[in-house]
C-alpha cells in the first residue's frame, strides 16, 4: 500500500517544493539507494550477463531484466563494450494498476513530475518513477566493473501504461544504435537501456 500512498506524498511535496523540487528529491533518493547497494565486479560480459539473468546484480532489484545479447555494442576495434538490457514490465506498472483498483485513478502529481523532468532534464519519462529510476541506474552502473572497467548506463526508450513511447535521441547517438531497432524492442519491452564500459571509443566517435 505504500506504493499507492506515495502519490499523495508527491502531491504534498509539489505544494511545498514545486515539481522541480520533487525531481531533485527523487534524484537524490536514487543516488542514496545506489550508494547503499555497494560495488560489484565481473570478469567479463558473459559472467555479468549470467548474473543479470539470475537476478544477482544491483540492477536486479528492479525486477526481471533481460540481457539482449544479440544487441552488442562494439568499439572501433569491434570489441564488445556493452549490451542492451530490457524490462518486459515497468516497475511502476503494478502500482498504476493497484491505484486503479483501490483509489480509482492516478494522481495528477504523477504527470506533473513527469512533465517537469521531460522538459528540463531528459525527455524520456513516462511516469514519476522514471525520474528516480534513471538516476538510480546511472549510479549503480558506476559501481559495477566488467573486466576492470566501470559501466555507464544510458536509458534509451520507455513505454508507458497508456502506450505512449519515448525514445532518447541523445542517448541513442552515444551508442550508435538505430532508433528503429529500439522502437521494435518496445513492442515486447517497456524499458530499454544500454550498459557500456566507461571510456570506450565507439564506432563513429571522432
Amino acid at each position, binding site marked *: 500500500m*505504500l*506504493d499507492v500512498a506515495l502519490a499523495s*506524498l508527491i*502531491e504534498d511535496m509539489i505544494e511545498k517544493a514545486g515539481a522541480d523540487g520533487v525531481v531533485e*528529491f527523487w534524484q537524490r*533518493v536514487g543516488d542514496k*539507494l545506489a550508494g547503499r547497494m555497494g560495488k560489484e565486479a565481473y570478469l567479463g560480459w558473459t559472467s555479468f550477463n549470467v548474473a543479470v539473468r539470475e537476478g544477482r546484480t544491483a540492477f536486479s532489484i528492479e525486477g526481471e531484466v533481460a540481457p539482449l545479447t544479440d544487441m552488442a555494442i562494439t568499439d572501433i576495434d569491434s570489441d564488445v563494450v556493452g549490451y542492451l538490457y530490457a524490462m518486459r514490465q515497468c516497475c511502476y506498472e503494478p502500482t498504476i494498476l*493497484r491505484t486503479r483498483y*483501490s483509489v480509482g485513478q492516478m494522481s495528477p502529481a504523477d504527470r506533473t513530475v513527469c512533465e517537469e523532468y521531460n522538459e528540463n532534464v531528459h525527455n524520456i519519462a513516462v511516469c514519476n518513477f522514471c525520474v528516480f529510476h534513471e538516476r538510480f541506474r546511472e549510479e549503480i552502473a558506476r559501481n559495477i566493473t566488467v573486466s576492470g572497467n566501470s559501466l555507464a548506463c544510458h536509458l534509451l526508450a520507455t513505454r508507458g501504461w497508456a502506450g505512449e513511447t519515448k525514445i532518447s535521441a541523445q542517448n541513442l547517438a552515444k551508442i550508435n544504435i538505430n532508433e528503429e531497432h529500439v522502437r521494435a524492442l518496445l513492442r515486447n519491452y517497456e524499458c530499454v537501456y544500454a550498459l557500456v564500459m566507461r571510456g570506450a571509443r565507439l564506432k563513429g566517435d571522432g
Partner: protein
Amino acid sequence: MMPPDVGMPDANPFVEIATHLFLEDLAAKVGVGGLNNYLVSLARNLASAMPEEEYATWAEFLEALRSGRSILSTFEEVRPVTDRCMVTPRSPFERGWREYAKRVGSFAPVHMESAEHYNAKVRPAAVTSLHIVMHTFREAASARVRVGGKTIRYEPLATVWVDGEKRSPPEDRLAPLLKRAGISRTKLGMLLRNHAEVWLLEPF
C-alpha cells in the same frame, strides 16, 4: 451481479524500497516527529481517496472482508476469527522489507524511531514506521464503512513484525479489547504464532 474478481496485483518491491528511501530522506529533513506526521497524513489521504462503503448486515461486511472486496482488505488478506476479531496472515509490507534487507542492507533506524514516537504519542501498536501507515489507514478506512447504517471502529490488538518483535496495548487496555473481540489471551498468543496482526472491528 458482482463483476469478475480481477484481483489486486502485487507491487514491485523496488517501488516500496524506493518509497522507504524517500521516507528516510524526508526524515533527515523533518525529524522523526515530522516523518510521523507525514505517515499519518499519507495514510489518511489514501483512505479518503478510496470510495465509501455500505453493507446491510455485519455478515455481508465480513464476507466482503474475506473476499478482498472491502476497503479494509484492499491491501492485505483479512480473515475474521470471530465476528469482531480480524487477523492479517502476512504484513503487506513484508515483501518490501525482505527485499530491502536482501538488496540494500539493514533497515534504517529511523523506521523504528518513528514507530517509538508513534507508540509514545498515539498508541503502543507499531514496530516500524510502516505500522503507523497501516494502523492509521485502517482507522481512517473504518470510518468510511457503514454497516446497517452505523460506522465502524478499529482498534489494534497486537502487531508482530517479520523478526518476531511484538507490540500490543498495555495489559489494562488489552483485556477489555480482547473481551470486545471475543477472544482470550491464550487465543491471542496462538494467533500470533502465524499471523502478522490481530485487530478489532466493531460497530460504533
